[in-house]
């Protein structure tokens, strides 16, 4: 018995040593990348690319087209949230080349030296990205990113379940739909909403303001305003008319609207959050050339048009944005509902009311996390 325990321990130790050796090598990235690339089937000359994005966030025919055009095999994977993507990158084992995080996560990745500068000479389509989506605060000199989509956060509500149209974030804290309100299950967005309602910046690092936002949420929580905290379950809940008021992203509202036409979307008068998701190449990527080809392909006008049509998130490609209503009419033989188009691609005067998230310092992130857990106890 003792012997077997010793054997097990030996196995464990050698295994964990071997594992940690692997990960060290991988994180360093200094040891010849070709030696590692064997895992990506480079031995038979097949070019591969590992992409990680969000769920239902691409028109998949684009992947097939890219593969046919370039002969590169794309391993397309999905992560549910920026935080989970970060966790996967931290724990290692995920050998992605291209990731599509949101603004605040990009600045965190840049801060922690996890991205590599792009070679924009290999991405001619970068020119087509509208200037207002370049040099944004998360990547001020635009060295690391090519925007993929952008959009807004807003209130989604069921017009048959509230008395009058909602215009303010107050609807999430007062009794507009007490017991029928859904809180977004993401501390950054939930606190962001409370901060915006209180008139503070979503990027505040003032602990007193964050605690005030917490009190606002906790007070509504204790009064039973919220049915619960949800993320993607929101589709099922809102489409079925099971809750009256919720907070989510514009693109997802348009998907829900297809299944329940009583739903409305509003960016409250206090303003809201707007976000950019952008393509980046990880520092330890093994297929850098292929990654550049992919980014250039996805930044093209044709890819942006088809993607925008499929996922309902607005494109940062100037041409695609302008052409989309016309393209829609040609493709479907009916005019695009411009009201919906403006929800997808919010006009500049709406964006001016919105604030993008910046990365928060570690101590504030911990405070967010602690308060968020406190809200559930």
């Amino acid at each position, binding site marked *: 018995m003792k012997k077997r325990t010793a054997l097990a321990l030996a196995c464990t130790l050698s295994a964990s040593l071997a594992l940690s050796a692997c990960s060290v090598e991988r994180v360093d990235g200094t040891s010849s990348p070709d030696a590692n690339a064997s895992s990506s089937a480079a031995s038979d000359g097949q070019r591969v690319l590992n992409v990680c994005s969000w769920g239902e966030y691409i028109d998949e025919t684009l992947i097939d087209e890219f593969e046919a055009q370039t002969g590169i095999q794309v391993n397309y994977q999905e992560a549910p949230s920026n935080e989970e993507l970060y966790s996967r990158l931290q724990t290692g084992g995920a050998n992605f080349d291209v990731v599509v995080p949101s603004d605040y996560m990009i600045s965190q990745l840049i801060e922690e030296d996890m991205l590599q500068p792009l070679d924009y000479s290999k991405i001619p389509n970068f020119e087509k990205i509208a200037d207002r989506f370049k040099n944004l605060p998360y990547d001020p000199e635009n060295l690391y990113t090519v925007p993929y989509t952008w959009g807004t956060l807003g209130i989604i509500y069921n017009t048959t379940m509230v008395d009058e149209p909602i215009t303010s974030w107050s609807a999430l804290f007062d009794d507009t739909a007490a017991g029928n309100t859904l*809180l977004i299950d993401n501390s950054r967005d939930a606190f962001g909403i409370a901060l915006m309602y209180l008139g503070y910046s979503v990027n505040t690092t003032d602990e007193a303001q964050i605690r005030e936002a917490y009190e606002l949420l906790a007070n509504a929580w204790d009064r039973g305003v919220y049915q619960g905290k949800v993320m993607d379950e929101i589709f*099922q809940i809102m489409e079925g008319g099971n809750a009256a008021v919720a907070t989510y992203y514009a693109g997802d509202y348009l998907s829900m609207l297809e299944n329940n036409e009583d739903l409305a979307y509003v960016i409250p008068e206090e303003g809201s959050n707007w976000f950019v998701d952008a393509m980046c190449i990880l520092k330890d990527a093994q297929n850098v050339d292929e990654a550049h080809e992919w980014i250039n392909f996805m930044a093209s006008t044709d890819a942006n048009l088809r993607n925008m049509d499929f996922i309902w998130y607005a494109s940062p490609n100037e041409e695609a944005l302008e052409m989309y209503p016309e393209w829609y009419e040609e493709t479907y033989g009916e005019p695009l509902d411009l009201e919906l188009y403006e929800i997808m691609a919010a006009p500049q005067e709406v964006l001016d009311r919105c604030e993008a998230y910046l990365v928060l310092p*570690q101590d504030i992130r911990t405070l967010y996390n602690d308060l968020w857990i406190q809200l559930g106890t």
Partner: protein
Amino acid sequence: MKHKRSLLALPYVGWMALFVVAPIVMVVVYAFTTAGFEPTASNFTGMGTYVSIFARSFQLALIATVICLLIGYPISYVMAKEGPGFQRVATVLIMLPMWVNFLLRTYSWMAILENNGLLNQLFDAIGLFDLINGLFGTDLTYFRMIRTQGAVVLGMVYNYLPFMILPIYSVILKLDRSLLEAAQDLGANSAYVFRRVIFPLSLPGVLSGVTMVFVPSVSTFAISRLLGGGTHMMLGDLIEQQFLGGAYNPHLGSAIALVMMLIVIVCMWVMNRFGQGEEQAVVL
């Protein structure tokens, strides 16, 4: 010869070492270190703030386990008593839901329990709300079932009930019939036989059933997320939050997981001792 045979166990030992022992070692290492892998115990000192989450998890898991036992034991008993045809059908029926993915089944419960869900629609269709509103002058249009603690317990019972039934069933099935006959010969009536012979002898099955329901219930996060809607945070959610929340802190997450494991082990140990005592009493 003996040596050669033990070689056959090597794949299993290797597997366990790699995927059970190594992860536990890693959890322990993480739990006692800081982000820079400096040794520390600070991950444990703040654990007091989570007492209510620990208490709630163990309470809900305990309730679910008791309900599973109350439902599962009679079913197992009846199954074991019936003929082989009935047993086959019943076993398939119990296993059937497990062929569908766990998350899908839990998602389906959402659709059933929602305010406009299937169950509330059924109540509405049979006029239950009209009846209640007529009797009590209320204006009820639905029962609030989803995103409550009750829904979480329901989810646990539904998902883990087979793990209670099957071990008890197989133990009762293998009971030595001659013991029952002997008891009857000596004048025991059937209630007495059950109380003094069948039930004590089935305890090993009950114990493994309780373990197999209680342990996953304590640590679940999918059920509490989908059916509890985050309204009542449980240990699984708390641990997940440390890894996938905004503040990535695997060290605190590991520490919480470790404490949870220790409490579960202590619970199991106490229960097993209690079980052994019973068995000895039977032997005596």
